[in-house]
């Protein structure tokens, strides 16, 4: 079947099989490998992308479901060479180690900001509760997101 959707601002028309997952469409067909597969069952959040403003696990969504939708992946966060404030804060606070959870973590935080530009700490925790990080212990991640809110 053919679907038509917007990926990181770009209109895209693609022919796909009905059983293809969104993550496979992104990684295999569009070569957007920033989105990672960690568990395939929606537990780890490494594959988080934004569909129509909401964070979703792309391993649990069929590709055909994004027909007529607006999809944002980690590759869509920076404007050219300029990193977004959120990305810059991930660097500043050392919210990254191996980098495998990072794209999903960024997308969950970005989706939160789309909905609520001034979230509380509790709301930040809720937003990333489905994103597992095995390296950092979360503290610098929360710091990075919190300081994006406060503009520090």
């Amino acid at each position, binding site marked *: 079947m053919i679907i038509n959707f917007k990926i990181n601002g770009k209109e895209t028309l693609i022919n796909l099989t009905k059983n293809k997952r969104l993550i496979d469409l992104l990684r295999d067909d569009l*070569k957007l*490998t*920033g989105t990672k597969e960690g568990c395939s069952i929606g537990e780890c959040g490494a594959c988080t992308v934004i569909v129509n403003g909401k964070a979703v696990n792309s391993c649990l969504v069929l590709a055909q479901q994004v027909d007529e939708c607006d999809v944002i992946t980690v*590759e869509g966060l920076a404007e050219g060479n300029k990193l977004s404030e959120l*990305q810059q804060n991930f660097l500043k606070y050392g919210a990254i180690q191996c*980098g*495998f959870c990072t794209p999903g973590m960024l997308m969950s935080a970005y989706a939160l900001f789309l909905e609520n530009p001034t979230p509380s700490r509790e709301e930040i925790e809720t937003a990333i509760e489905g994103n597992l990080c*095995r390296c*950092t212990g*979360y503290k610098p991640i929360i710091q990075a997101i919190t300081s994006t809110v406060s503009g520090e």
Partner: protein
Amino acid sequence: MKNYDWIQHVRGESLFVDDITPPEGTLHAAVFSSPIAHGKIINLDLEIAKKLNDVIEIFTAKDIPGENQIGAIIPDEQLLADGILDFCGQPIAIVVAKDNFSAHQAVKQIKLEFQEYSAVTDAREAFQKGQLIIPPQTFSLGDADSAWKDCDLIVEGTAESGGQEHIYLETQGSFAFPVEGGGIKIISSTQAPTTVQRAAARILNLPMNKVEVDVLRLGGGFGGKEDQATAWACMTALAAFKLKRPVKIILNRQEDIRMTGKRHPYSSDFKIGLTKEGKILAYEVTFYQNAGAAADLATAILDRTLFHCTNSYFIPNVKATAYCCKTNLPPNTAFRGFGGPQGMFVIESAIYKAAEKLGVDPMVIQEKNLLSEDDEFPYGQKTKYCMARPSWKKAIGKYNLGEMKNQVEKFNLENKIFKKGLALMPICFGISFTNTMLNQANALVHVYTDGSIGISTGAIEMGQGVNMKLRQVAATIFSVDISRVKIETTNTSRAANTSATAASSGADLNGKAVQIACNNILERLIKSAQQELKSNETDQIEVKDEIVYLNGNQTELTWNILVQKSYAKRTSLSSQAHYATPGIHFDKSKVKGEPFAYHVYGTAIIQVTVDCLRGTYEIDFVKVVHDFGKSMNPIIDRSQAEGAIMQGIGWMTIEEVIYTKYGKLLTDSMSTYKVPDVYFTPKEIEVDFLDNPNPSAAIFNSKAIGEPPLMYGIGIYFSLCNAIKAFRSNAEIKNSAPMTNEKLLLMLYEPAGQNLKRKLKNKMTVK
């Protein structure tokens, strides 16, 4: 200083094995593995599977051109089982298909006929049956046997610690393709490229120079990819070699958890003797290590358990024995701490029990027995620049332990259902591979004619920031901007015969090798500058911030000009260097020596609040004073420490690996095996740097950081025990980690039923 390697991470541009665009015609492999923990193959029927659409070939043991063997230390592990099955998830066949889905469909159509034997999953049962992988190992100091008579108190007990699944977020994977001349190139997610190279050469019956292994980076390792990335790399190498086509394998999460080993579970007996003042005089301990079905790294892990069996304490009389027990679980493997945490949990359990009997707080015994300068470890090495007492003293002062204790006492008096517990956890961890041979590294540094620099070493970047630290080394020595320095992939053709990036030693060993290589080049550049500036040999020439200075005065030579002029004069701008940690040695027959370049110390204070109705708990805080040496990169080191602490806490609390008695893993997905999420993090986590430049053999006076802080996590177990005792003072504390909510609840109310009734009744009358 920010880690520049992270910029690609936040842009989603960093490549992991599965992100590399495969060449046209790349095939995909999936593994058919044993459904039983112990038995024998009667018949393997591949016919239906082979006929499925898009299936190219299925390989079994008989297709291996070389030796069917991947055991790195002891050759006791087949790549593909062909007779006896020793664990559930043991690879038997490799299906290669046009795509991943078809490969997995075909795996389901393979029919295995087998005869099942009874499985042993418990280390003590294996010990009783004489299933030992190596003879028992014993470390001793003083004379424990005759010291008991001088003790006022002798306490005996057992301690159990469970396994731990690595959950590196990037699962195991490899990609191999044939190269000209009958060789093979493997892109692997491994911590040990040389181990992969050696094993693949053995499997394919090729010389090592025909097997090239290349590693970009790992999405986490934690020890799980030290020895256990090898099998998957060998499988893709075998298939690519036979089919003359590129082959890729990426395990899905469930396959990864089922087929790979975990942290070794231990069951231990201890006996500890003390004076009535709490001075430990003697300690005897027996460790039963559950190695799983093959040696893997179990023997080296067993050694480290013995090395760290007295943790941060000086005990004059010690006898520690360890048994490496073969069971029918997947071969257990390295996990951050490498047996050290298992040994340290037992001495802490012994101290806790002794404190109960003496009627004192465990921290009294802990403090009294901390290591001092020149104290001897059971393996003969003496402490040097010992930071056990300074870190303890700083922690209890800086964080005001007295006030913390008052607050806990007050809270516990005022609350019936919620109870707080507080415990201290000192650590001492030796740095160096305990196998002295492995403490070597090499580096290859090129300065290009445009002034940019490329570095190859054996170090693997897996999130620990080693690449950034290596860049810092080169940028500091050359005094150039760090953006000029690039760390190349880790490749066996550029860095040969390398040790795994493990034992927290990646930055130390490879950093030192980079330092030597850079100094070699710098020396030549200085000589070249001397000629260029027509200066005398006594003149002082140095490069500072990319400019050449003569006797402290700026010259016209910049880094770029110097490099170009040196090249024009036919000066070598490359250097290969080798580093071997000096002074370390260990006599295996006497089990004495100086195996460690230095030790890392520190002290943590951990407080929890337990909901005594539900058995749930929260971590109020973890406050640490850690001996970082002179940290090369505080942002990286702090994050390493915090992450390690969380992993240690996870091991002690919610991470529970459960096998059935038939050796089937029940916790085989991320929905049944839980690692800490954002809600489980401590409300407060504070890590203070003990300001202590390390004079020992470490890069730029820093200290290794990867593993040591994990062991602070052990403290939470005893914080929880203290909270339990605050709720029910006569609760029987069992040393059985992890302390899951269920276990905690059972300890709160044992014997079940009666106590609860009495408590609720009392509560009602109070009201």
